[in-house]
């Protein structure tokens, strides 16, 4: 852009990107601005295909499950009181990987911890070796 505007100098907390990403653009130029009367304009190849709804559906089951998974990973004080091993596991695993496998592995460990019985105790023993 040939702009006289200087990027924000001091502080640096405010992000001032100098160009727009495609996501920014889709959200801006497809449904905003003036519309030429349909009977005046000519049709262009490809435009008909552009029935993109740039807006994300903000609330869906997918969103809910993502949120649930994300809060499941959060380390809060209360975790450290009740589930120290899980927290340790998540600290390690969460930092390295975002895969579901990490959560599953952690979950299994908690089941083992809380499950009771000899089998559980022996498995715990093995893991602590």
């Amino acid at each position, binding site marked *: 852009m040939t702009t006289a505007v200087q990027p924000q100098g001091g502080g640096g*907390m405010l992000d001032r990107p100098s160009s727009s990403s495609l996501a920014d653009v889709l959200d801006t130029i497809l449904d905003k601005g003036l519309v030429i009367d349909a009977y005046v304009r000519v049709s262009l190849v490809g435009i008909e295909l552009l029935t993109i709804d740039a807006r994300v559906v903000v609330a869906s089951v997918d969103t809910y*499950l993502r949120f*649930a998974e994300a*809060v499941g990973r959060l380390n809060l004080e209360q975790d450290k009181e009740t589930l120290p091993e899980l927290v340790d596991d998540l600290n390690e695993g969460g930092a390295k990987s975002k895969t579901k496998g990490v959560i599953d592995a952690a*979950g299994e460990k908690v089941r083992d911890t809380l499950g009771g019985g000899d089998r559980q105790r022996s498995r715990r023993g093995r893991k602590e070796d």
Partner: protein
Amino acid sequence: MAAVYVYGIVPADTPVPGDATGVGDPPAEVTTVRSGDIAALVSPIETAASLGRPEDMLAHQRVLDAVAAADPVLPLTFGAALTDADAVGRELLDAHHDEFAAALAELRGRAEYLVTARYVRDAVLGEVLREHPELAELRDAIAGRSEELTHQDRIRLGEGVNTAVAAKREADTRAVADLVTPHAVQAVVREPAHELDAARVAVLTDLDAEDDLTGSLAELAEDWRGRVEIRVRGPLAPYDFVATVR
């Protein structure tokens, strides 16, 4: 068949930004078609050539934003083309000359700035769990149990979190809107486009007031450090403030 692609409407004396190339492959040269006090920013296009590549959309906005940094411009939605320069002059410019000229006069010295604020995920989720003990409990009840057994609970948890985030979004959007209002000719709230959007506010402001606007926002960014990241794009063409009234 050749046609004329139209980007936007400008005052007749507006220079075409030198470094802005248009839509098409290879990118077409942008020129103007004048009529009276106004002009259209245009470039030649083949109707048989496919339009709608990412490059085309980026080019459309780049041309408009480059103009908006110095001169008023009425942006058209992406994908408008007329048969030839004569049609642009008569059917677009002449047909709406006075209303376009009046709108451009109103926009002189002004541009749009788009403020977008995005939550830092773990920070906002931590807030939510601290503020909603019932969600924290539900989360703890789910932890360690199998996915199949907890499917409904996890949906319930996520829905509760989403509702809590939405409430925060509403409050934080209001905070951003209140902050920019003193610097704004007009401000418009955009719908969220992402589940972690904290606020999206388009601001029409005097170009002279840009430093005041970004200064205020920088203070807010400092206050929200670690929980919300704030971005300001602009000057942009006034996309959120120009519409065809039916």
